[in-house]
Every structure is written in structure tokens, then in C-alpha cells.
């Protein structure tokens, strides 16, 4: 079965938003993710084919919901977990902010202490 990234000829995605980006990146974190990819690939942590496979292995729903560089970050994290460099959930520690991106407050820390901080696990790739 084709993976979700194989969209050629698929119908239903609507008109192209032809807005021309003037800057290479929309946010600083996007540049950091590209830097992570280039630096880790250059040192042989993974190769481009592994990286593409990690993106293309994302479940369809997550793939379509993620922005372009979110997919990159998901793939990088997945490969680092596979190679034992980081542990699943490790980026969630220290009072994870909520899905809405609010700063981690007392409530979040309390929940974390009670072991209920796993709401973002689905995003870890």
C-alpha cells in the first residue's frame, strides 16, 4: 500500500496557496531543525534515505496535520530514539507545556509530578 506521502494525482487538497515566502524560514526553530538535520547527517548519525523513510513512515493523520519542518523534527527524534541517543518522552520532561503552547506553570509541574505528563506522547514520532 502506498504511504501517505505519495500524493501525486490525489484529489481533494484544494487550490495551491501561491504566496511567495520571502524568508527561507518562518521561525527560528525551523532553521535549527535544518541545522540539526545537516549536522547529524554530516557526522553519520543517519543518512538521507533513513531520514526520508522516517518521515514517510509517519501515520497519515500525523503526517497531514504536521507542518513541513515538524515532519523533519519528528523524523530526527524518531531516528535518535531508534539509535538509542534519546529516550522516548525525554523531550517532554520538566513540566511540559500544554498543547496550546502555554508556558509550563505550577499546574503542569504538579501533573508531571503525579505522572500525568504524557499528553504529548503521540507527537514524539
Amino acid at each position: 500500500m502506498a504511504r501517505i506521502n505519495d500524493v501525486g494525482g490525489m484529489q481533494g487538497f484544494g487550490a495551491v496557496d501561491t504566496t511567495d515566502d520571502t524568508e527561507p524560514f518562518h521561525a527560528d526553530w525551523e532553521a535549527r531543525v535544518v541545522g540539526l538535520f545537516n549536522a547529524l547527517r554530516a557526522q553519520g548519525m543517519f543518512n538521507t534515505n533513513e531520514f526520508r523513510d522516517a518521515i514517510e513512515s509517519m501515520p497519515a493523520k500525523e503526517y497531514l496535520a504536521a507542518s513541513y519542518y515538524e515532519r523533519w523534527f519528528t523524523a530526527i527524534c524518531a531516528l535518535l530514539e531508534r539509535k538509542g541517543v534519546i529516550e522516548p518522552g525525554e523531550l517532554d520532561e520538566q513540566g511540559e507545556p500544554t498543547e496550546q503552547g502555554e508556558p509550563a506553570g505550577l499546574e503542569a509541574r504538579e501533573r508531571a509530578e503525579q505522572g500525568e505528563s504524557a499528553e504529548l506522547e503521540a507527537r514524539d514520532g
Partner: protein
Amino acid sequence: MSGDHHDDALISRRVRRLETLLEERGVLSGGALDEAIDAFLAQSSPANGARVVARAWVDPSFKSRLLADGTAAVQELGYMEGSYQRLRVVENTESVHNVIVCTLCSCYPLRLLGPSPSWYKSESYRSRVVREPRAVLAEFGLALPAGTEIAVWDSSAETRYMVLPRRPADTESFPEEELAARVTRNALIGTAAV
């Protein structure tokens, strides 16, 4: 959708946390990321592709070499050195207009065109330009005569494409640098003419 702002704060914290972990574990040194970003941006720009096009417009023998072996020809100008990818340059003519896509992901001649625009990576563009290229080009404001054939080139991990646009008629006396200044990123992708 790209650039959802409520996600930006969240993901940027996660990226920073990953950077910190990789530094603590000795996987990345302190300045490695900044160096990688600077190197990427320094060697990747649509100005590079524009210079290749301008050279092809003024130098017929370079143009022949460019169309025969894109990788070797752009390496003459100092681009794509050491790249494992193959560049194929496709020429627009009176009867054929070329446009590039990567239906599977986002393959693109980064070093010649710079980071790709968001629409190039969108599901809309990737899915539709292979099925209804004329309609998609119209959305970019490019209306082609009904008799013009449209060739769509689907990039792969190994082969990247770049369009050689047609030289505008009013530019006979232009020096090479001025010609290059007329060539836009969209013209190199094929979603605009020059």
C-alpha cells in the same frame, strides 16, 4: 498547515531541549548547529540558479553542456560541488513549457534555488500539478497558450530538475548580471515565465 503560531512556541522549546541533550551527550558540539545553518544558507540561493540561466542565455556552448549534463555544467560555475545528486536542466521552448515537482516529498535543487517555498512542499501542489498542470499554473497567474505542451518533471532522491526559462525578447543588449536579475525562483521551478 505550516507556521501555526500556537505550535511554534511548543515545538521551539522541544527543539531547544533536543539541542541541549545532544550537547550534554557529546553528540553535537556547541557551535555545530550554527555552523550547519550558516553553511546551508550561504551555499543555497536562487541567485545561483539565475546566474546559471543567464550564462546559458549568453553562451550557446555552455547551454549545450548544461542541457547535456547539468551537474557537470553547473560545477564549472562552482555550484553543486561534491553533490551526489544529478541535475537535469529542462529547456522551455515555443512549444514546450516545463515545470518541476516532487510528488513524494520535497526534492529540489537546493543549492541552485535556495530553500523551497512552502507551496512547493504543499500537498495541493504535489498532488495536482501532475494531474492538472495547466490549472495549477493558472493559479500562479501563468496562462499558457492552448497549444503549448506542458512537461511535468517529478524529482527523486537522485535526480533534481531545474527549468531553463525562455529569454525575454527585449533583453538582447543586457549584460549577464542584468539577465540574472530578471530570473525569479518561480521561473526556475516553472510556475512563472521570465
